[in-house]
C-alpha cells in the first residue's frame, strides 16, 4: 500500500475484524483478514492485539479445538465503543480526503 497506516487505523481494522465474530476469533485468522485490507507483515499483528488487550478493548479466552486449546480474542464493551468512535472518525476523515483527492 502506498499510504502510511498509523496505529489507530490498524487498531480500528483489528477491532472491526474481531467484532465480526460474536464468539471472537483467533490470531491466525485475524492476521489473514487484516492482511486482506492492509499490507502488514505477519509479525505486526501480535503487538497490536497486545496493545488492545492492555487497553481493555479486547479479551482472551481459550477454547478446545482439535485436541488443544486455542486462544480466542473477543471485543469488550470498551472495544465496541472504541470501534464506533473509529467508525465515526473514519467517515468524516475519508469523506474529507475524497473530497480533495478525487474532487468529488
Amino acid at each position, binding site marked *: 500500500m502506498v499510504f502510511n497506516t498509523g496505529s489507530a487505523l490498524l487498531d480500528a481494522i483489528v477491532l472491526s475484524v474481531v467484532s465480526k465474530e460474536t464468539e471472537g476469533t483467533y490470531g491466525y485468522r485475524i492476521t489473514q483478514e487484516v492482511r486482506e485490507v492492509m499490507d502488514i507483515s505477519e509479525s*505486526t499483528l501480535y503487538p497490536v492485539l497486545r496493545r488492545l488487550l492492555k487497553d481493555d478493548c479486547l479479551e482472551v479466552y481459550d477454547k478446545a479445538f482439535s485436541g488443544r486449546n486455542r486462544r480466542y480474542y473477543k471485543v469488550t464493551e470498551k472495544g465496541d465503543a472504541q470501534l464506533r468512535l473509529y467508525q465515526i472518525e473514519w467517515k468524516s476523515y475519508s469523506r474529507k480526503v475524497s473530497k480533495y483527492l478525487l474532487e468529488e
Partner: protein
Amino acid sequence: MNRREYLRRLEQCMKGMPPKEVEDALRYYEDYFEDGSLTDEEIITSLGKPEDVARQIRGNAGYDYSEDKVENNEAQKDIKTPKKRTKGDWVLIVIIIICLLPIVLPVIGSIIAAVLGLLFAAVLLTLAFLIGGLVAAFSGIGTLFVSLASGLVITGLGIVSACVGILLCRLLWYVFSKGVPAMAKGVVKICKWPFKDGSEKEGA
C-alpha cells in the same frame, strides 16, 4: 530452524520482559503455527527472524521494556554520570583548602565583620532617628509656649525624624528577614563548593 527452535529463540529474545507477557506472546505464536495452513518453514519465513519479532513486541507503543530504549538510557547514563572522584582527588582538594585557609579565612572574616558592622551602624542610625525624633517632638511641644515658631520647627523636625526612623525600621526588617538568610545560604554554598560533584555543578 524448526518450530520448536524458532519459539525457543523467540523466548530467549524476550528475556527481561514480565513472564506473563512472554507467555502470552509464545502462546500466540504457538497457535499461529498450529492454525496456519502452511508448513512450519513457510510460516517461519513469513514471520521473519525471531529477533525482529521480539523487537516488535518490545518496541510496541507504550511498552517500557523496549530493548532500544534500554540501550539508549544506558548510553545516556554513561555520558551524564560524572567521574567519581578518586582518593587522590580528595587529598588534593584538602591540601588546596589548607593552603588557601590563611588567605581565605581573613578575607571571609573581614567581610563578615564589615557586613555585621554595617548592620549594627544601620540599627543605631535607625534608633537615633526614631528616639531623637520622638524626644525632639515632645520637647518641641514644651517650647511652643515659649516661642511658637521655634516650637513648631522643633516639633516638626522631630516628627520628620521619627518618620525617617520608622521607614528605616521597615528597611531593616526587610534586610534581616530576607537578606540575612540569603547571605547565610550563600556562605554555606561557597563552603560546600569544593566538595561538589561535577553533576551537581551542572545542575546548579
